[in-house]
């Protein structure tokens, strides 16, 4: 059974050469999740797709097929391209890599699509990179079903208190009982509450958020490595 999908909002996450003139492209689509497609002739001089098949360019795509690998029938621009440069570009590549590594193919997540669009738009408007990445990671965990509460302790259900310290258990959340959840690192309640509000004005909060996200992401990534991190010098 083949399926035809018309004019679906999408972004290119990654493209690699395939045979002589084609590309094997990983798309993030709004309603069909991550999708791999062969785009025939995309690398030839005359290709009408040249320049559109580029990360961070909002596009509409149509395809047919229902297998792991569909074939692209149509592509058109959908709004102005988001031209990321410098560190924003590296940050955008980090988001792409996170999605490729964490989102299963054909797992529909309109929420992740919208967040991604917001995230790269924020990077484009030169909003601060780190808060943008942390916001995206936080929403990504929730969307993938790995979310946890930033407002209540997981072991006692007590509200997180500013003066308290908490251990972090990726499968549960933040825990008050530091003896039971014997952790090398503990996190300040005040920081957790700030992160809950996406308030990253304080540098220490930002550092805490980065530490927590690293731990939380690594649990979901298993033995996969996020290579883009090597690019941030």
């Amino acid at each position, binding site marked *: 059974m083949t399926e035809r999908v018309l004019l679906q909002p999408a972004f290119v996450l990654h493209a690699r050469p395939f045979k002589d003139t084609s590309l094997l492209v*990983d798309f993030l689509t709004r309603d069909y999740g991550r999708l791999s497609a062969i785009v025939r002739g995309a690398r030839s001089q005359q290709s009408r797709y040249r320049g559109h098949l580029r990360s961070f360019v909002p596009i509409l795509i149509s395809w047919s097929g229902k297998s792991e690998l569909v074939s692209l029938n149509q592509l058109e621009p959908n709004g*102005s391209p988001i031209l990321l440069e410098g560190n924003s570009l590296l940050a955008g590549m980090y988001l792409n890599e996170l999605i490729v590594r964490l989102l299963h193919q054909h797992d529909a997540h309109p929420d992740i699509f919208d967040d991604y669009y917001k995230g790269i738009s924020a990077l484009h408007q030169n909003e601060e990179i780190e808060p943008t990445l942390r916001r995206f990671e936080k929403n990504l965990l929730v969307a993938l079903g790995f979310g946890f509460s930033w407002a209540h302790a997981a072991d006692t259900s007590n509200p997180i208190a500013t003066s308290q310290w908490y251990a972090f258990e990726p499968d549960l959340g933040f825990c008050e009982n530091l003896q039971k959840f014997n952790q090398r690192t503990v996190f300040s309640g005040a920081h957790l509450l700030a992160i809950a509000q996406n308030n990253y004005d304080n540098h220490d909060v930002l550092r805490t958020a980065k530490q927590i996200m690293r731990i939380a992401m690594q649990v979901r990534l298993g033995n996969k490595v996020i290579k883009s991190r090597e690019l941030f010098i």
Partner: protein
Amino acid sequence: MFSPLINELIQALRCLPGIGLKTAQRMAFQILERQRPQGLALAKSLQSAIENVGHCKACRTFCESELCTLCSNPARHSHQLCIVESPTDVIAIEQTATFRGYYFVLMGRLSPIDGIGPQQIGIHQLNERLDNGQFTEVIIATNPTVEGEATAHYLANIIREKSISCTRLAHGIPMGGELEYLDGSTLSRAFTARTALT
């Protein structure tokens, strides 16, 4: 369906880019029917290239000697270094005869999703090359793809720290191109990088 040796040959030919099963079959029969000496020469030159061709110690391009002919040419401008993604880029630039310095070939570009990071593009070798003080100008000529641009940005950060002047090839509207048919990315980039008319 074919005898084991023929099957093996067909499978082996399929490792070449763009060669599918049908083409591989055609190639195998062509060689066996009509081009046995040429086939033997191909096998020999494949073997000897694979055994003897390595990377130039200075620029990383393919060559069988320690230094490639370009790197061992003392008549080149010794203070300029051009960084490119692949050996074919060197050939393309050489054909324009506009650049007379030396090259460094990354043999790829930063592409984290493919597992290609700084180490894989020879960053240590590039650092050593830049640290010997020979170069006063580095020209980054990576492709204007997302990965090529990320690579350029990453390299520029490293080069600037060494107080070496660093430039990048301009990109924009291709010669003979028409605005109407350009994609949005190219056109916006051309706008941002517009130059004054003198």
